[in-house]
């Protein structure tokens, strides 16, 4: 609760930030929605076409390809970031020395621009000269698997997903590690005394205790993957064909390469709806009955307090 009552000062402090925010974030959302009902090629007059862009979208084969690709991308990215991140966070809790150093270094890939990362992976995947991955396969005697990973229809999507997953694994590890070490040791020390094994403690006590963090990171990770753009765009720009096309690369191409601004906006609106829906669904699925009751109670208390306050 605040203490200053001057409305004038309130507005003076709030408005600059609020207006900037509205101009940069909400004006574009409004414009995107408006444009998604228009047909416009970049020059001349915009033509109102009603739901035509959305109808086209739901009849567009590439749209479905991009949607499915995005789901696969999402599964790869999320499982790399969360599963690998969590796994190494757990391992790290058993380390006693150099933990800070390891954490600091794990984090480095998130600091580097995606343009550099794509360049790096382009070299790793390449066949001419033989990239790291292919050299490794040759050394392991798997010559048959040597291929140009980005140009192959069957591998391109996985090849553009992995760098994204790799990049942020360290960040999620740091988050999970922080959550794990902040747990009160007395809780699981007691279980240990009662004869619980390390694995039991891990899955029955520690995991449930950091459920909230896992849920939050899952939300973050999912919305991040739904809007994935940089790495696929730079590595393959959706190719070969549409084999690694994602929603946002498709939107980008439609708008800025084919100048179909209306259709591009319809795709953009779809991306935003999809992201908000995903967040909502996760929250819904993971809120247990108990938590819902607690929340309901809090709301009632708040209402009561407000009534008393007035």
């Amino acid at each position, binding site marked *: *609760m*605040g*203490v200053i009552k*001057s409305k004038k*000062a*309130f*507005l*003076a402090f709030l408005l*600059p*930030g609020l207006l*900037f*925010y509205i*101009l*940069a*974030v909400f004006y*574009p*959302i409004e414009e995107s929605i408006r*444009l998604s009902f228009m047909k416009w090629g970049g020059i001349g007059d915009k033509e109102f076409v009603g739901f035509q862009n959305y109808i086209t979208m739901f009849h567009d084969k590439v749209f479905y390809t991009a949607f499915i690709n995005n789901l696969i991308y999402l599964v790869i990215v999320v499982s790399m970031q969360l599963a*690998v991140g969590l796994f*190494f966070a757990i*391992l790290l809790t*058993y*380390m006693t020395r150099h933990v800070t150093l*390891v954490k600091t*270094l*794990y*984090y*480095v*890939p998130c*600091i*580097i*621009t*995606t*343009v*550099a990362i*794509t*360049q*790096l992976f382009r*070299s790793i995947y390449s066949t001419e*000269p033989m990239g*790291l991955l292919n050299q490794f396969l040759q050394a392991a005697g798997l010559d048959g698997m040597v291929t140009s990973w980005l140009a192959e229809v069957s591998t391109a999507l996985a090849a553009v997903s992995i760098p994204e997953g790799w990049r942020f*694994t*360290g960040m999620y590890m*740091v*988050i999970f590690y922080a959550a794990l070490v902040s747990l009160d040791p007395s809780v699981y020390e007691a279980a240990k005394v009662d004869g619980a094994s390390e694995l039991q403690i891990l899955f029955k006590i520690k995991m449930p205790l950091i459920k909230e*963090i896992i849920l*939050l*990171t899952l939300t973050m990770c999912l*919305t991040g993957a739904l*809007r994935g*753009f*940089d790495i696929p765009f*730079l590595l393959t720009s959706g190719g070969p064909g549409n084999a690694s096309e994602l929603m946002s690369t498709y*939107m980008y191409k439609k*708008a800025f390469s084919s100048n179909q601004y209306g259709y*591009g906006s319809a795709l*953009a609106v779809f991306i*935003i709806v999809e*992201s*908000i829906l995903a967040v909502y669904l996760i929250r819904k699925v993971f809120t247990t009955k108990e938590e819902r009751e607690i929340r309901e109670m809090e709301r009632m208390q708040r209402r009561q307090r407000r009534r008393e306050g007035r």
Partner: protein
Amino acid sequence: MKGKAIKIIFAVLIILFLIIQIYPVIWLFIASIKPTVELSSAPFAFPENPTLENFVNVLSDGKIGLYMWNSLKVTGISLILIVALSATAGYALSKFRVRGKKIIFSFFTFGIMVPVQITLIPLFIFYSDMGILNTSFSLILPQVGFALPLSVMMFVSFYEFVPNELIEAAIVDGCSPFRTFIQIVFPLARNTVITIASMYSILIWNDFIFANTFISEGSAKTVAMGLKDYVGAFGNVDWGSTFAAIAISILPPLLIYFALNKWVTAGMTMGATKG
């Protein structure tokens, strides 16, 4: 000694993963001191004849300096705006007793969910109507706008720790809300400012999507865009210069990260978990 064996296995796994995470980055730097010939014959071997020639080439051509300057301009101005706008808006939303401020706060936090792609088409059209494509401003507007939700939230949660009594006392003593902010509240928020500034300096420096959409002319290109001059293109690529350019351009964020690593991670992990 079962426990010890497990510990060793854990340590080995951690080190293996560490190599996966960090080797590619180190390799970037190694590659940048290799002659182009070696890069095309044995790109992953250690350099036989380390050379600084790549760096000389990149620096003497002068473009990278311009790109770095552009990035610096965008990053610097954005940071000042982000801190100024979110410190004040956060103060309004935290220390004032005004109706409707909860709704405004949720309105701000809603922004965390909005994908940046939604702004590309409308802002592109807006900028080309106004004739301000290819300017630093075209990048600063969305960078600041999308940074505000999280940074306002961070300031609000910090201000909650500033006791109301302190502000009440100042007001009673005849201090205006503005002076209270400038002389008492804002100086206390030093850590929040460093967290936000260090995190967003890296994120904005690295931005690709806005720069790629709104900037097409060489003179306004930022570093991330400038690198694409070398990347993307196949055929006659001067790999040596490419890697030298990459090495130069990722140095500033890395330096900030290693110098302020506590704050950077705090900011980014907060960004992740508050979403």
